[in-house]
């Protein structure tokens, strides 16, 4: 079929028919052309192949998108150029008898809203792999342009490319515009509840309500069951979610890393998506842009930022431990606290200064400066001891001297300072929560849960004990108490200097308050000089070593 005019006329008829806009005469004309010319049939089929390959193949569409930023004004300019070209283009038509006048108003079929037929739905509902079809058909859904599909849920230090106005709550639109995150972190919540955390520098486009292309950068996707089929495209791969959490990194050369942390994904890579692989939890793959080669790499659970919370400045990379000493230091348990930061148990106020030895009441003091600490206190056992803002009581609180010394401190210590441990690396620096005897602190577990939505606190673990060196070893004697919602879960009494023991307490979702207490052990006063009396708290250098909440 070498007649260019006829080819173009046929191409035009094909376009109209695909839209359902052919008149009856035009349809007859189309059929006649095809029946009378076998080459026209080939041309027709090849044209349909080209069109279907463009419309059903996001890789081709992305080639079309290139790196252009198609703003409205830019589009208008381009369109004007196109229109000018049309004015000078030669008319293309068959002779009048074969090509009736086109009446575009006479549309026989309106473009229908895409739907799944009832019979198909019934079939799917009875099929074990119904979800599979949801995924498959999502690939075919014709992308609709320029509509909102996601919201900027949060950001930490996020700076977007000039000209891009994105703020918390801003809506993200499908289409050709690229979003460039120059600095910081951004969390996108798609309307289908898929959540993406993106690390700068990154550039991405939103292709649809369940599709995104990452040109470069790093993202972590948490996809709930209702959003199964969420797809991330990169220059070298396509990752389709099958109900999971996964991280994707695309470097500036277009190479991709996929790390699957939960569930399962399908990875497609190479020319025309030649390689299909299921990648399940705990597995990671690297895809080379140049060759499409897929290789195994170690799955790194903390490689991607999974959740951010700008209110608490929390950046969670999947760490499974919340450090309570860090929280005492004003942090969020993930290492953002200040070393040597103190909290006065007799007032609840933070400070970087020590208060020394003093007598205090056993009032329960909230710590308003720290959302994760419910309160602190100096137990004396002489009246009921409140240990939470909800009035939980420490029923077994022993009678103490009512004195305390220094403060609760977020500190670092060398292992061999703490005890004559058999640690393999005694010089190792460890995080410790120092609390001298007759102090108590209560952590608000619910506030910590709120810090990391979806995280489950399963245990409290710590080493605990008394420092190695004591001014008066015989008087270094204290009791340790661990309470959950006022109920005693662990106690260790008559703990001496240079003594370390392990604590491991299971926690449930309903547990709200975790209380750590050290009391003086009831040592008698001792007069060592005429005018000097050593009291029961003397040398009670208690500490919790690496006190952590274990997350699942």
């Amino acid at each position, binding site marked *: 079929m070498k007649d*260019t005019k006829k*080819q173009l006329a046929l*191409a*035009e008829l*094909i*376009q109209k028919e*695909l*839209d359902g*806009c052919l008149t009856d005469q035009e349809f007859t004309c189309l*059929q006649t052309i*095809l*029946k009378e010319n076998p080459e026209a*049939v080939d041309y*027709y*089929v*090849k*044209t*349909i*192949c*080209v069109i279907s*390959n*463009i*419309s*059903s193949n996001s890789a081709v*569409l992305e*080639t*079309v998108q*290139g790196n*252009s930023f*198609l703003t409205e004004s830019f*589009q*208008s300019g*381009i*369109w004007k150029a196109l*229109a000018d070209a*049309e004015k000078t*283009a030669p008319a293309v038509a068959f002779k009048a008898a074969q090509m009736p006048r086109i009446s575009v108003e006479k549309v026989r*079929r309106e*473009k*229908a809203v895409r739907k799944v037929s009832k019979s*198909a739905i019934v079939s*799917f509902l009875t*099929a*074990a*792999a119904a979800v599979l*079809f949801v995924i*498959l*058909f999502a*690939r*075919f859904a*014709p*992308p*609709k*342009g*320029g509509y909102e599909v996601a919201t900027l849920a949060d950001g930490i230090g996020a700076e977007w490319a000039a000209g891009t106005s994105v703020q918390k709550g801003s809506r993200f639109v499908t289409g*050709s515009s690229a979003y460039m995150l120059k600095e910081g972190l951004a969390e996108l919540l798609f309307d289908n509840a898929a959540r993406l955390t993106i690390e700068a520098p990154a550039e991405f486009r939103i*292709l649809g309500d369940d599709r995104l292309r990452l040109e470069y950068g790093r993202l972590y996707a948490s996809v709930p069951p209702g959003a199964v089929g969420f797809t991330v495209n990169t220059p070298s791969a396509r990752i389709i979610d099958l109900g999971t959490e996964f991280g994707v990194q695309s470097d500036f050369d277009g190479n991709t890393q996929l790390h699957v942390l939960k569930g399962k994904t*399908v990875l497609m890579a190479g020319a*025309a998506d030649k390689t299909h692989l*299921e990648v399940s939890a705990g597995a990671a793959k690297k895809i080379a842009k140049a060759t499409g080669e897929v290789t195994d790499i170690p799955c790194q659970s903390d490689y991607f930022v999974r959740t951010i919370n700008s209110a608490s400045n929390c950046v969670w990379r999947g760490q499974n431990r919340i450090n309570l000493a860090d929280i005492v230091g004003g942090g969020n348990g993930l290492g953002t606290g200040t070393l040597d930061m103190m909290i006065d148990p007799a007032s609840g106020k933070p400070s970087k200064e020590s208060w020394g030895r003093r007598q205090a009441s056993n009032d329960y003091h909230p710590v308003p400066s720290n959302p994760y600490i419910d309160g602190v206190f100096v137990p004396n056992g002489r009246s009921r001891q409140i240990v939470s803002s909800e009035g939980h009581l420490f029923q077994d609180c022993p009678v103490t001297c009512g004195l305390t010394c220094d403060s609760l401190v977020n500190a670092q210590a060398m292992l061999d300072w703490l005890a004559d441990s058999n640690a393999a690396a005694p010089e190792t620096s460890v995080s410790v929560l120092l609390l001298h005897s007759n102090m108590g602190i209560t952590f608000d577990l619910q506030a910590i849960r709120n810090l990391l939505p979806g995280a489950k606190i399963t245990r409290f673990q710590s080493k605990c004990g008394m420092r190695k060196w004591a001014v008066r070893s015989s008087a270094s004697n204290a009791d340790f108490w661990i309470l959950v919602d006022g109920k005693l879960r662990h106690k260790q009494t008559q703990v001496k200097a240079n003594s370390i023991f392990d604590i491991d307490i299971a926690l449930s979702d309903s547990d709200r308050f975790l209380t750590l207490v050290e009391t003086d052990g009831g040592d008698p006063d001792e007069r060592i000089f005429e005018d000097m009396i050593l009291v029961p708290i003397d040398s009670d250098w208690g500490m919790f070593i690496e006190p952590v909440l274990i997350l699942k």
Partner: protein
Amino acid sequence: MDIANLESKPTKESLFFQLFMSSQKNLYAYILASVHNFNDAEDIMQETAAVMWQNFDKFDPDTNFLAWAISIARNMVRNYFSSRKKSRLQFDDSLMESIEQSAIRNLERNSMRIEALKKCCEKLSESSRLLIQLRYEQGMTVKSIASRFGRPIAAMYKALARLQDALLECTERIMAVEK
């Protein structure tokens, strides 16, 4: 896709998924060529996939998956037209047969066509890229595109026809060289 190349012992679902994904573009092209309408093609694609899944146990792994898929799609196309009494819009049987034979013949090289198409798209002018984006990425009808930019609909169809013809010629040229 050769089943032997799949990962070891895939589940029925994953095997179907992989086979379907490897054939979907060709199957869609076949259906689109048969019904020559985007909306109808999508409906039939969905129903065909459902029937394929229901009958996947009957598929012989030693045979060609696409051929099996097309045999199902062929019946779906016929049922679709007859049940909806769209005979006026349906090509007659002899032409349908010619189209089907041509489709099967051309789809054998569709992977190569996709790669060629990518290269051709890279060479497009900005205005052509825009037209393709609006039409195929954003799913706009030609009428909508014309309306949006205040251009005659007939001119838009001509522009799209020229672009489509140029892309076809380009892909054929590349495929001929790389044959």
